């Protein structure tokens, strides 16, 4: 087992690879066992090739050379009788020539063997060179493998660094995004709350508008009814007005008639009053004498004290002054009489006396005194 990686990621990667290998081995369904003939172990054999190639020609040459040399020496340095016999026998000479020929051939073969040996050595040298080249290739391959692994380790380290940098950058980016998004989220939440409130307010407004519309319709209906009632009332009032106008006209006519009648009656009553108070007199003199005879001034002071209303007291004060002036003037002087008449008209005493009489607030004595005074002053 390889050494445990120190980094958690590396350890997990290693564990995952081991797990994957185990799972793959478990999942794989191998084929049948190879047939018996194919799987029999081959016994180890000695490799004779280079050894035989190198030493066999030399050994053969040496054997031949040794044989030839032995025969040659035996022939040359053998016993004398044998030499003589050889000289004496042509067959021995032939044998000697044959042996010499053998020697010559063996020498030639030796040379050929040496040549073959040289070629074999060249071949071996070439093979050795190839072996060395192969070793060199193996060494180069191993070196390349080491370099590859070192480069691979560097790349893995660099990738780890990049991954860490990437993770840190991602974390920073996430934090930055979170930092920027947080206010936006709050703003969005606030806006949503405001929107909900606005929607609720809008619903309330719609409800109110609905209610107002209903109220308006009811009001229009009510207005229509009121207008109808108003029209009806106006018609009724117009009719009443017309009736009242007709009544007023009739009343005015009757009033005019009554006033004319009253005027006539007052004239008659004045004449009788003046005739009773000042028989034979006329004009201002008759009025002066009637006032004196009926003691209007004396009665005025007493009535004034018993007057109920302020307007009555004020009128009594004025009439006291007028009656006093009437009593004091010289009736024979027309200028004084004319001045007196003008002042009475100017003051407008007759209508004021009518107002107090119509009010009816005073006692019977005061009303009678006012009527008498009016009869004295009327017609001037």
């Amino acid at each position, binding site marked *: 087992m390889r050494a445990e990686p120190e980094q958690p990621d590396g350890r997990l990667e290693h564990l995952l690879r081991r797990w994957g290998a185990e799972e793959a081995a478990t999942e794989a369904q*191998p084929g049948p066992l190879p047939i018996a003939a194919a799987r029999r172990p081959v016994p180890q054999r000695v490799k004779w090739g280079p050894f035989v190639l190198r030493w066999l020609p030399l050994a053969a040459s040496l054997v031949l050379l040794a044989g030839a040399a032995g025969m040659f020496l035996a022939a040359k340095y053998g016993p004398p009788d044998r030499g003589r016999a050889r000289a004496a026998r042509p067959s021995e000479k032939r044998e000697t020539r044959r042996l010499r020929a053998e020697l010559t051939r063996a020498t030639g073969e030796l040379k050929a063997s040496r040549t073959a040996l040289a070629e074999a050595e060249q071949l071996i040298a070439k093979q050795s060179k190839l072996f060395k080249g192969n070793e060199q290739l193996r060494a180069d391959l191993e070196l390349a493998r080491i370099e590859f692994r070192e480069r691979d380790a560097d790349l893995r380290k660099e990738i780890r660094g990049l991954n860490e940098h990437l993770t840190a950058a991602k974390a920073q980016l996430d934090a930055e995004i979170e930092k920027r998004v947080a206010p936006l989220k709050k703003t969005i939440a606030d806006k949503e709350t405001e929107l909900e409130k606005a929607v609720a307010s809008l619903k309330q407004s719609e409800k109110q508008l609905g209610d107002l519309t209903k109220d308006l319709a009811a009001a229009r209906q009510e207005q229509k009814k009121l207008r109808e009632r108003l029209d009806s009332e106006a018609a009724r009032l117009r009719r009443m007005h017309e009736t009242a106008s007709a009544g007023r006209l009739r009343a005015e006519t009757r009033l005019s008639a009554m006033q004319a009648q009253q005027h006539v009656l007052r004239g008659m009553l004045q004449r009788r009053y003046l005739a009773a108070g000042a028989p034979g007199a006329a004009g201002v003199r008759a009025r002066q004498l009637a006032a004196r005879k009926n003691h209007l001034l004396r009665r005025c002071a007493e009535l004034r004290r018993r007057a109920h209303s302020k307007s009555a007291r004020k009128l009594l004060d004025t009439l006291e002054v007028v009656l006093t002036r009437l009593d004091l003037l010289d009736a024979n002087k027309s200028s004084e009489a004319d001045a007196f008449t003008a002042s009475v008209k100017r003051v407008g005493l007759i209508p004021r006396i009518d107002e107090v009489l119509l009010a009816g607030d005073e006692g019977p004595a005061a009303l009678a005194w006012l009527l008498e005074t009016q009869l004295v002053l009327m017609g001037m």
Partner: protein
Amino acid sequence: MSADAPDLIARCLSGDDAAFTALYAEHAGRVKAYFLRQGFTGPDADDLTQQVFVRVFKSLHTFDPSRGTFSQWLGAIARNVARKHFRRRTQPQSFDPELAEEMFAATENPTGRAELREEIDALSQCIEALPAELARVIHLRYVQARTTRGIAALLGMPEATVRLRLKEAAGLLQGCLKAKGIFE
């Protein structure tokens, strides 16, 4: 590698057919998985597995336990066979020389084996608890040893999405393994 591998090898060398069968049954799945993860098709992986075991059986006498475990030796043979055939193919993906180390890594220490087994079991449970789409990406990446591009092409999604899902799955697995006390 199992503890009785030397005995199995010795029996194989003595011509015991049952030993051959046992050795094949123990390692053939891993060898085929190795070829599948290198991108070979199922039939090709079966053929190459056969080739590997023919080589293994023929040269079993050359195995030297002092130079490494049987798994590592088997992995070297499988890697050579894969490399030889890989050069003849025109596959878009590149040959992964580390895949053999990963597949045939040996843990001699029994305690280490037990710890590794425990970690792998915990990881397996965590992967089962992942959402389906994340578990699928993890399976394609680590069981089928597919590249990000290969996964993206298979699932019909951008490579960036595949990388994001792998990262998301790694985060969840980290948390799960921490919860199980595997990671600190």
